[in-house]
């Protein structure tokens, strides 16, 4: 077999999984009506798979800022910040993120994926150790594999299991980076952060929290789980993304450690890629203002999330462990998950279908993400449809 035949053979089973008549992954969206509605095929579909938690993708302030930036600074930066220089708005956004987190330092990256890659691969040496929650996002796993360090997983949200691994490390615990997430992307549950902070201090380790799904969602000002748990000052590094609650694209890392600034000179995912476009930076700056002042949006988001979670729970679906803007319906078989996903789409609802190995414990998920911008009618509609479809789910 040549290289391409080997590739095809390796992935043949994946094709078998998927029906040929509908595009399950990467659906083609013809037109957007709003942050919660789009035309897919020839139908108007309600979007419950966007991560657009605050619904800011069409916020007039963000649109206006983006339009102005395009007119003034053009469509792209055409290169890396280290080589081509940084526009002052890139630095201003960093300053605003640092200010938001009451931290000394911030670096922004072109995506959240690259923020994790860039921080982890820049900071960690092959002699160090990384201890990560088993449910961490692929960007964290990929960052870890770039380091050559010893990478050890602990059971999801199990601090006893985590402490055992810290104990076994002995003196090496002090050269260990612990990595957890604020809200986990697949099941939507939160990390037991106070206990994790206690353990990291007890063993002298360093802690990174990825707030990708919790930025704008948790805490009075939307800093994320660090704010809700009251441990901002005790966390060493925070990463996150502009691609969810900020309705944009890009990533950030904030810290009080001066070492963060050095990452700019040693981190390949920062150095060897183009910086974010002027429109992206301008819209993100505007969105960050809305996010910081977004108590009303957060309140609405949580009302919506609790509503759908309790409806699905009452219907007897197996869900992630706690209510939140990521609501995962957990299914034992991928055929059932694909079937349910299709029926939801047939009823005008777009959700995220997630299959192993991207999911924990070999399960399949229908992942619904909730937005402050959903209307009561849209929420009642999805609850109704799930109620009608309950009969097809025999193993829930």
């Amino acid at each position, binding site marked *: 077999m040549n290289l391409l035949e080997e590739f095809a053979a390796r992935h043949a089973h994946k094709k078998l999984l998927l029906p040929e008549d509908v595009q399950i992954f990467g659906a083609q969206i013809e037109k957007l009506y709003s942050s919660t509605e789009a035309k897919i095929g020839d139908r108007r579909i309600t979007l419950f798979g966007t991560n657009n938690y605050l619904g800011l993708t069409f916020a007039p302030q963000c649109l206006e800022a983006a339009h102005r930036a395009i007119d003034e600074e053009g469509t792209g930066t055409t290169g890396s910040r280290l080589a081509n220089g940084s526009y002052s708005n890139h630095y201003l956004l960093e300053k605003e993120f640092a200010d938001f987190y009451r931290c000394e330092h911030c670096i922004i990256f072109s995506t959240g994926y690259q923020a994790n890659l860039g921080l982890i691969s820049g900071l960690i040496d092959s002699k160090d*150790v990384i201890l990560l929650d*088993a449910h961490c996002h692929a960007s964290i796993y990929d960052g*870890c*594999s770039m380091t*050559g*360090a*010893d*990478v*050890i*997983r*602990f*059971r999801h949200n199990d601090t006893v*299991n985590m402490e*055992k*691994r810290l104990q*076994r*490390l*002995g003196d090496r615990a002090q050269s260990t980076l612990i990595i957890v997430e604020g809200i986990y992307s697949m099941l939507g549950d939160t990390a037991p952060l106070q206990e994790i902070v206690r353990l990291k201090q007890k063993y002298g380790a360093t802690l990174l929290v990825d707030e990708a799904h919790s930025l704008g969602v948790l805490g009075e000002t939307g800093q994320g789980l660090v704010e809700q748990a009251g441990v901002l000052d005790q966390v060493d590094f925070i990463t996150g993304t502009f691609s969810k609650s900020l309705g944009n694209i890009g990533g950030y890392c904030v810290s009080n450690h001066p070492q963060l600034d050095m990452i700019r000179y040693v981190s390949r995912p920062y150095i060897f890629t183009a910086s974010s476009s002027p429109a992206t930076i301008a819209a993100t700056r505007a969105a960050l203002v809305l996010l910081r002042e977004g108590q009303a949006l957060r309140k609405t988001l949580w009302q919506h999330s609790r509503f759908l979670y309790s409806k699905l729970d009452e219907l007897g679906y197996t869900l992630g462990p706690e209510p939140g803007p990521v609501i995962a319906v957990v299914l034992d078989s991928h055929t059932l998950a694909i079937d349910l996903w299709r029926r939801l789409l047939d009823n005008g609802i777009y959700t995220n279908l997630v299959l*192993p*190995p991207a999911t*924990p*414990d*070999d399960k399949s998920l229908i992942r619904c993400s909730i937005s402050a911008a959903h209307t009561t009618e849209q929420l009642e509609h999805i609850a109704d449809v799930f109620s009608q479809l309950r009969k097809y789910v025999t193993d829930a």
Partner: protein
Amino acid sequence: MAHTYDQIFQTLQGILEKVSVRGTVITPETGLTDQLKMDSMKVLDIIMEIEDELDISVPMNNLVDVNTVGELAQLLFELDTSKS
């Protein structure tokens, strides 16, 4: 207390038999991904179970050259004997 290679292989065999199609015979030559059809995450989850049984930590980066059950047992044996 460190375990012998045979003890470790048997522990591994027990766990793998539980998660494989009924009647699967697990030998040191059995391939983890090609024969047992486990994806990378499943292999990692199984390792987490063994870590607790043997009280060792298995760094993911040590698994790069592990393809068969025997190779995994050998790695676990080495980590187990080198623990202080």
